[in-house]
């Protein structure tokens, strides 16, 4: 039996004041614990843990670049993790069943002492991989994990000299014009470089319909569909005088019910 070396830790929080607070409390509760470094975002935390190889990392959950959950996923099994959070009720309920500990901000000295006591006991074992807990957390907090497909909600387009973000709900239709695609809203028109062919893949098919090789219309903006003297379907859109032709390929969209 040889004596254990002094335990070490890394603190990660994007707010310096919060790092100082944790460090102060840890010094009171566990004087032997030596703090090897402070990180201000998830990426830094990972790099620091990998290079300094501490026994414990205190991870704030909401941090820039990469949040605490993602950092913990990257470090699973390499270090003992304690999450620090101000108010994440989902996270807290998840911790209660997990193998890892958590601290609530502002860190209460008695609670910190309890965490230190638990950590002392756990240091004798290998760090937990936290697989279930992290999966559960990332799902609840919406960080990483599987997400339903996201469609374009904003279109970035130049209006005059400016670049504007146009919400798709404002758009009446898209129309191919030479090298550009014209975005028409009730108030103005704008040009984007993305061709219709690519756009249609990124737009929500429930929101936008392609009615012609060169035209995509927002379904809710359609006022009526008429026929011209040659029997072609013509789409009339609310808020625009322009008439949009439906090509034969897309005729089925406006079949009579």
């Amino acid at each position, binding site marked *: 039996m040889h004596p254990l070396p002094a335990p070490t830790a890394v603190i990660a929080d*994007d*707010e*310096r*004041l*919060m790092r*100082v*607070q944790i460090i*102060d409390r840890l010094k009171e509760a566990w004087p032997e614990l030596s703090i090897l470094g402070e990180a*201000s*975002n998830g*990426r*830094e935390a990972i790099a620091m843990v990998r290079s300094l190889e501490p026994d414990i990392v205190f991870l704030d959950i*909401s941090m*820039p*670049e990469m949040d605490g959950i993602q950092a913990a996923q990257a470090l699973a099994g390499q270090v003992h993790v304690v999450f620090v959070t*101000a*108010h*994440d009720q989902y996270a807290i309920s998840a911790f209660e069943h997990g193998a890892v500990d958590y601290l609530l*901000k*502002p*860190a209460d000295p008695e609670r910190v002492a309890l965490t230190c006591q638990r950590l002392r006991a756990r240091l004798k074992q290998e760090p937990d991989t936290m697989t279930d807990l992290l999966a559960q957390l990332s799902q609840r907090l*919406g960080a990483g994990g599987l997400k339903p497909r*996201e*469609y*374009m*909600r*904003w*279109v*970035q387009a130049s209006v005059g000299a*400016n*670049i*504007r*973000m146009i*919400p798709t*709900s404002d758009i009446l239709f898209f129309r191919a014009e030479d090298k550009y695609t014209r975005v028409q809203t009730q*108030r103005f028109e704008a040009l984007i470089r993305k061709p219709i062919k690519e756009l249609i893949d990124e737009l929500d098919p429930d929101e936008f319909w392609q009615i012609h090789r060169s035209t995509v219309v927002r379904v809710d903006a359609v006022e009526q569909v008429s026929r011209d003297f040659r029997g072609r379907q013509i789409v009339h859109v609310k808020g625009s005088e322009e008439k949009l032709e439906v090509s034969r390929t897309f005729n089925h969209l406006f079949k009579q019910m």
Partner: protein
Amino acid sequence: MNTDQRSRGTDNATEPGKSDPASRPMGIRQALREIRKGIVVMWWGFFDWVAVVSWKALLLVSFLGLILAGIFKLPTLAFVLIIAAFIIKVVAGGKRRAERTANEATKRAETEQLERTVVEARMEALQAQIEPHFLFNTLASIDQLIQTDPPRASKMQQSLIRYLRSAMPQMRGGSRPTLGQQVNLCSAFLEIMAVRMEERLQPVVNVPEGLKSAVFPSMMLQTLVENAIKHGLEPRAEGGRLEIGAEIVDGQLAVHVLDTGVGFMPKGEGGVGLANVRERLKALYSDRAELIISVPPAGGTSATIKVPYEIAPTTPPA
């Protein structure tokens, strides 16, 4: 038996008290009442018809009436009726138009009222939840500063009080919110965030004193500022600048929030707050207001709200 017959007599005026003489006067009165009722109905029918019928049809009928009057030799009666019809047409036509306008106005007012109520209710629910994450983080920072830097702790707590106080009157509603109130709320918020984020947040508030009395809807500037921090500056390790500005452009009040953060994510989740602002602008001003999100050449995000420029009526201080 007897009572049965009597009751039938009163019910049916066409055969007044066949078997019971006592019921006769009552039957006649009943008949007169029925006739009067009939005339009234016919009169209103005629009135309605005159009111609804087109002038052309009315002229045609009058002409036919004159011919018939010629045949039956009743020109005076015909003239009186025709003139009466024309007077009714003028008066009733106006009345009908007025009724229709009134109906439309009521319907429109009801819709607007409804929209306003819905929007206000939703707004109140929103305001009631002052981000707990923000509140707890701020309190944790104050707790730390009390030990390390008490004067700064006190300053931060005052900012928090100011923030909460200026958020409160908005919950109570009442007088129309001004740009000044919104800017104060956001300044307090930015002071708190600046203490927490330190050099990662450089706030600039650049709103001319003269525009602070302008009417500006509540909790919209706040949404833009929170978005700029949450989605623009916080995700960026080095942080950046956040500027609030206001100007008059073409008679409209344009208030913008500009940040030098990571830039707008077209597929990001931060759209809820903005969609809410958009919806409320539409309900409050229909097409006379708009929210514009653009990308400045230097990067980051710029959000501008344009509303009709209007000076708030002077209200006693809250």
